[in-house]
């Protein structure tokens, strides 16, 4: 008999591992002089900063503390003045990056889905477009980012376009495969019950492709974020990618780490959102009612 899973114990392990990593990160390099053979140079806070510095920097970048290390008051207007003064504070940067990711994701998913359905259900169209799709798909999409920034400028549009171009193919291919592998029995059943072509698309093709589409959405949201960040690296006035570039110019590891950690949290939150949506829309896939 398998031992019953104990969520408490799993969580304890996870917390322990977290604490280990943070401790090594925070104090590991202090041992460098005494134990040089054990502690690699890479642990140098100059490169990877350390948790306390990162937290301090987080407070400064988010206008909660001034650059002198004093907490900005809410009521005395210090916080507000800081927010107004720094163009690319953490709040604005996160909001801008999230907004562009969202638009890149939504446009990429919807256009990839529509194109996938259209070509997946039409042998003629897929035959015509097949070589073009293979060719364009062979380009590493990120290589197009400089061209996109050149064409669309350093504003938000170029980030959305970069994000769109990395997302659209991913969703397209999954939808296409899904539309190709539809059980014709379902299509025939619907047709014999009097469904029109449009009704078949709506009530059979779309729902049976959903599982395939959702399989691509979790990577798609990460891709969308990657597209935006790369776009911001190339040229932007605001955004988390811009924040990273600024910190890099000042050789400020803690600033970069703040940005990276915010990106990580954003990524986790977005993936969780997709999971919730998937669990709801694909609830028929759960076999919990059996027996």
């Amino acid at each position, binding site marked *: 008999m398998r031992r019953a899973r104990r969520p408490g114990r799993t969580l304890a392990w996870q917390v322990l591992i977290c604490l280990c990593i943070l401790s090594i990160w925070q104090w590991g390099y202090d041992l460098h002089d005494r134990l040089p053979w054990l502690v690699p140079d890479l642990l140098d806070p100059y490169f990877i900063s350390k948790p306390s510095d990162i937290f301090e920097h987080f407070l400064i970048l988010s206008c909660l503390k001034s650059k002198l290390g004093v907490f900005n008051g809410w009521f005395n207007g210090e916080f507000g003045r800081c927010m107004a003064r720094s163009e690319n504070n953490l709040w604005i940067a996160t909001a801008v990056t999230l907004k562009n990711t969202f638009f890149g994701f939504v446009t990429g998913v919807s256009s990839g889905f529509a194109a996938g359905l259209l070509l997946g259900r039409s042998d003629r169209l897929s035959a015509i477009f097949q070589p073009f799709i293979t060719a364009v798909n062979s380009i590493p999409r990120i290589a197009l980012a400089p061209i996109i920034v050149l064409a669309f400028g350093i504003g938000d549009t170029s980030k959305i376009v970069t994000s769109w171009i990395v997302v659209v193919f991913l969703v397209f291919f999954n939808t296409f495969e899904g539309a190709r592998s539809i059980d014709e029995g379902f299509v025939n*059943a619907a047709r*014999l019950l009097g*469904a029109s072509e449009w009704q078949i698309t709506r*009530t059979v093709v779309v729902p049976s492709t959903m599982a395939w589409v959702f399989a691509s959405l979790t990577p798609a949201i990460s891709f969308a974020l990657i597209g935006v960040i790369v776009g911001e690296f190339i040229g932007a006035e605001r955004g988390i990618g811009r924040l990273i570039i600024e910190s890099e110019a000042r050789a400020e590891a803690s600033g970069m780490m703040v940005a990276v950690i915010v990106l990580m949290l954003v990524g986790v939150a977005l993936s969780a959102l997709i999971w919730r949506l998937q669990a709801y829309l694909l609830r*028929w*896939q759960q*076999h919990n*009612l059996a027996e």
Partner: protein
Amino acid sequence: MHASQFVASPVTRRIDVRGLCKTFQLAGTAIEAVRDVSFSVRRGEFVALLGPSGSGKSTVLNMIATLVKPTSGQILIDGTPVVPGQATPNVGYVFQRDTLFPWRTVADNIGYGLQLAGVPVAERKERIDACLMQAGLQDFGNAYPSALSGGMRQRAALMRTLVVEPQVLLMDEPFGALDTHTKIDMHDVLLRIWEREQQTVLFVTHDLGEALTLADRIILFSARPGRIKESFEVDFARPRNAVKIRETPRYAELFQLIWHSLGEEFIKGRSP
């Protein structure tokens, strides 16, 4: 067959099949599946198409259902030729394997045809509930098909076809995948429905016992290429009981008679 005979009584003839042929192209070779099949089914008659596998009986049914395009020949339902690829009104089809939509609940599956026809929600619900009751699935309306047993699924699939009240029912070995007991249960379910609604039924099977239990007439197909070999009237009284009928001497008698003829085709179909 004389042409005038063919249009003689459109009132009593529901399904008319004339000179139906089908040749499939498989990897460059022509395979003749159905050769010159002609028969007709009266209004309200229950006809079984019986034959060994590969005798083209399912192909004939699928041509009538418009799923397969005939190579030549004519199919009329209520005197109107069917159009391949286009559903014929008032004709229902039950598949060999259940094709319930896994993303819809049982109730939504049954209500699918009504939804397509734009039946208002309140009426839809009423008719779905009646169907669930009839199929003994009243507690499973909100379940997804994956939670159901094979027999329950096939009952739900039957109801999805019946809910729109088709006058012609085409059934392609609908109980073929079920175990013997579930199968006989299904026979009783189908007999009760048919005795009440009196649809015209064309039922494909390779199971002689099933054909005898259900049908008024059995059309026996020969091994490939499929042709009609013989036709048998099944004269058991109605209403029938799927269990009791198998105990009667007349059943044994008919079984033996048809089995002999069917057996010849099994053997023929077996040899390469």
